[in-house]
């Protein structure tokens, strides 16, 4: 089969373009919206915590979190199901997340007693730690940097504002806000 120089160049360019587009779609296509969903859940959860504490309605905090987190979990699951890519690694990722939260729960039980601020920062940095591990595991460097950066911001807020309800506002802005911003940015930019 005879192929001209131009035809070969054009074919190789097309192959390159499609392969990199597919790799971007795998890396960011579903992950971006899922990160944004969890960011919004964090914003709503921490804003509710902040507002409920200021209004002396702390008993409602757990309920508020339960609603936001279960909604985010359900939406993430639905988005994951809608992904056009299927990989045998998905089951292992699901098991990994389940185990991470199982261990977090165990550590919380072992470390009891602690105050709300310690519990808050602990629970918030656990998924960020999971992002770092997933980034290293799946060779997605942006997840490593996202996990490290958000953890750094959260810990900074903890040391600056521990014992002050404004720490929850910090967590909403720098934790939830960062996740939402990065998630939206990834969702919009991966197609370029």
């Amino acid at each position, binding site marked *: 089969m005879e192929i001209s120089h131009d035809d070969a160049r054009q074919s190789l360019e097309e192959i390159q373009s499609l392969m990199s587009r597919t*790799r971007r779609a795998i890396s960011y296509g579903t992950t971006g919206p899922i990160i944004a969903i969890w960011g919004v859940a964090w914003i709503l959860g921490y804003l509710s915590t902040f507002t409920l504490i200021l209004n002396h309605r702390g008993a409602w905090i757990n309920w508020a979190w339960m609603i936001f987190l279960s909604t985010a979990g359900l939406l993430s699951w639905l988005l994951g199901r809608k992904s056009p*890519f299927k990989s045998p690694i998905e089951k292992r990722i699901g098991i990994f997340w389940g185990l991470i939260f199982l261990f977090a729960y165990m550590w919380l039980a072992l470390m009891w007693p602690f105050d709300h601020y310690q519990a808050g920062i602990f629970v918030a940095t656990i998924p960020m730690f999971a992002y770092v591990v997933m980034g290293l595991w799946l060779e997605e460097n942006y997840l490593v940097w996202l996990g490290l950066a958000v953890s750094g911001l959260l810990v900074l807020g903890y040391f600056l504002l521990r014992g002050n309800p404004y720490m929850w506002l910090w967590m909403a802005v720098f934790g939830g806000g960062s996740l939402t911003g990065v998630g939206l940015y990834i969702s919009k930019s991966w197609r370029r």
Partner: protein
Amino acid sequence: MAEIDSLIHQPVRLQIMAILVALPALDKVDFTYLRDTLEVTDGNLGAHLLKLEEAGYIAVEKVFVARKPHTYIAATTKGRAAFEDHVVALEAILSKPLKNHA
């Protein structure tokens, strides 16, 4: 020496293989993603997939997800090797000096 694979070189099939080979081994992609990305009709895509499947370059799996039929496609080891050979052959053409037609 790697040779041009005429089955793969057809434009739509070349694009299909490029997408499938970009997936990690054992991963698969939904039929609708291929159709929408390549902007082809169901029938056209189906015909090209059949040719690639007959050559053993791809594996097609039909499953039901929430009672809806879904078709997933993956590149086989043979398909990945054939595609790599094809790319090497294209690169070899590019590495040759251009003939002067003047």
